[in-house]
């Protein structure tokens, strides 16, 4: 009798998707994803398909399209691109088509029960690592690969090595999941997890809500990870139930005890202060005190990293009874229509509006450089996931990244502010 060596989540997920067994890191195989997400880039896929002269697709039920990056259209060109996608989806019978009203693809797909544990999901977006929040293997690819997968159903995948990131302790009030993952990025660097499967574990991770797990798996991309995963547990199952996913429609994949990791990283968050990522790289991370007092022109609460309901609620808790500083623009872009609807019934939206926020339609918004651009010499504090030069307008502007709590506190003071200075009664992120 032969014994199978222990396997990591990544090995199991790629074995499942490829139908092959006993894969080892470094091996290149063809995998058949369960879902192919394409966002506003979908029009490029359609044009590519036209160029190929192919109309026979592998499985239209595995295609999901979400018009999120530029929504609603900002130009006749955008409008024509959207129209192309809309008409293509109707013609091909693509049922998972979400129009400009839906919100950010990643969040929309998870809310709608389209992401399940153990599944292999590709997307035309680097932050597709976010699907690991529900125990799926999510990874980003270019639009040519999505087009090719529409036709063939498969793509080449290298089996990654895995890195285990064990996080223990409980954060102090005012320190959010975003602060923890920014600290990790600062410690490991922008290429600290390149080509790797990042597995999160430890008591802190077990205590995180799905929303916080999304923030984690999303930001893992900023360390170069191929995918990121939080092992599914009761928290995951409860979320899936709420999203209408049948319990018998998926199989949870977990790393075996004794599985081989390239490295194990440990972090205790008990004493961690709120963190800020300083221009122009995400891994340039300092405690908020180091940059407190830096003047701001704009604060952006949005993106697939931090514009979920919990994120908006944290910001509203801090902003309640306060007003945005004179001369500062606070832009809030809910991650999805569902987030916006919930925030409108719980009073969160009203609190943000009363505090002086500009609420925009759900979508990527300013994070993708659409609405909320900056002029020369301006500075934004953002809850998004990238602070690269020129990403939000002028090449001569600056982006700082922080948590929703730090963003809200900074909007009130008009300068980068430790949220603990304004948070008298506010406790942890809602779990």
């Amino acid at each position: 009798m032969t014994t199978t060596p222990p396997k990591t989540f990544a090995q199991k997920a790629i074995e499942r998707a490829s139908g092959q067994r006993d894969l080892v890191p470094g091996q290149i195989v063809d995998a058949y994803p369960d879902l192919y997400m394409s966002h506003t880039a979908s029009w490029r896929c359609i044009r590519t398909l036209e160029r190929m002269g192919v109309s026979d697709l592998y499985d239209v039920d595995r295609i999901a399209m979400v018009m999120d990056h530029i929504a609603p259209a900002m130009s006749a060109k955008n409008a024509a691109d959207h129209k192309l996608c809309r008409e293509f989806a109707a013609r091909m019978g693509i049922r998972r088509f979400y129009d400009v009203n839906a919100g950010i693809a990643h969040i929309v797909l998870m809310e709608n029960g389209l992401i399940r544990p153990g599944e292999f999901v590709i997307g035309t977006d680097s932050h597709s690592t976010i699907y690991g929040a529900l125990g799926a293997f999510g990874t980003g690819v270019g639009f040519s690969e999505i087009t090719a997968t529409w036709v063939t159903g498969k793509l080449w995948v290298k089996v990654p090595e895995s890195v285990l990131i064990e996080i223990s302790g409980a954060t102090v009030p005012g320190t959010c999941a975003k602060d923890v993952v920014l600290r990790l990025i600062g410690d490991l660097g922008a290429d600290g997890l390149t080509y790797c499967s990042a597995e999160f574990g430890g008591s802190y991770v077990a205590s995180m809500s799905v929303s916080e797990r999304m923030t984690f798996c999303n930001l893992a991309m900023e360390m170069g990870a191929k995918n990121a995963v939080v092992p599914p547990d009761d928290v995951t199952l409860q979320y899936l139930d709420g999203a209408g996913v049948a319990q018998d429609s998926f199989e949870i994949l977990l790393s075996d005890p004794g599985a081989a990791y390239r490295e194990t990283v440990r972090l205790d968050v008990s004493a961690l202060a709120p963190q800020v990522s300083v221009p122009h790289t995400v891994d340039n991370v300092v405690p908020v005190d180091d940059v407190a007092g830096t003047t701001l022109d704009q604060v952006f609460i949005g993106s697939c990293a931090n514009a979920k309901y919990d994120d908006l609620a944290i910001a509203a808790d801090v902003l309640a009874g306060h007003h945005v500083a004179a001369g500062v623009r606070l832009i809030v872009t809910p991650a999805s229509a569902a987030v916006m609807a919930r925030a409108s019934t719980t009073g969160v939206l009203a609190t943000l509006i009363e505090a002086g926020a500009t609420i925009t339609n759900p979508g990527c918004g300013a994070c993708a450089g659409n609405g909320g651009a900056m002029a020369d010499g301006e500075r934004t504090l953002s809850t998004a996931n990238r602070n690269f030069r020129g990403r939000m307008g002028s090449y001569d502007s600056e982006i700082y990244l922080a948590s929703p709590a730090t963003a809200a506190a900074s909007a009130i003071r008009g300068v980068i502010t430790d949220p603990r200075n304004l948070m008298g009664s506010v406790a942890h992120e809602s779990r």
Partner: protein
Amino acid sequence: MTGQRTGGKAVVFGDNINTDLIIPARYLVSIDPAELAEHAFEPLGPEMQQRVQSAAVVVAGRNFGCGSAREQAATCLTGAGIRVVVARSFARVFFRNAINTGLAAVECPAAVDTIRDGDEVWADYDAGTVETAAGTFTFPAFPASLRDILADGGLIPHLMRQPKSPEKHDD
């Protein structure tokens, strides 16, 4: 294609060159390599853009192409006349996009150490060699599957050469 050895004059970059620097999102409304090339590296200023336009090889440090999954980060380089990127390491999505759009992307830290801006650099992804003024350096040759995609000029042209009717997969 006539062979897997390609190269010419090099333009040298440092570490962590991200896709927002390579091609800002505002230009992603285009997929035309020549049009995209006009805006390649725009945030770094016209002098750097000029150096890229006159080069055939991009040489970079660690984590070249980090950031967005935008395929145009590879396409704009091809449009600018870049034939190969030689780096210490690549962000994984950029590496995929490069191969899939027919742009050779090789990791060879030892070669990068020896290259100065304006040097002649030649790379052969089949043989797994990079030639610089200081000598010839080796890297693991690409697996056959990737060599085939590159040789056909990218994933889509490669696919168009395949026989139709893909077999269905049971899972």
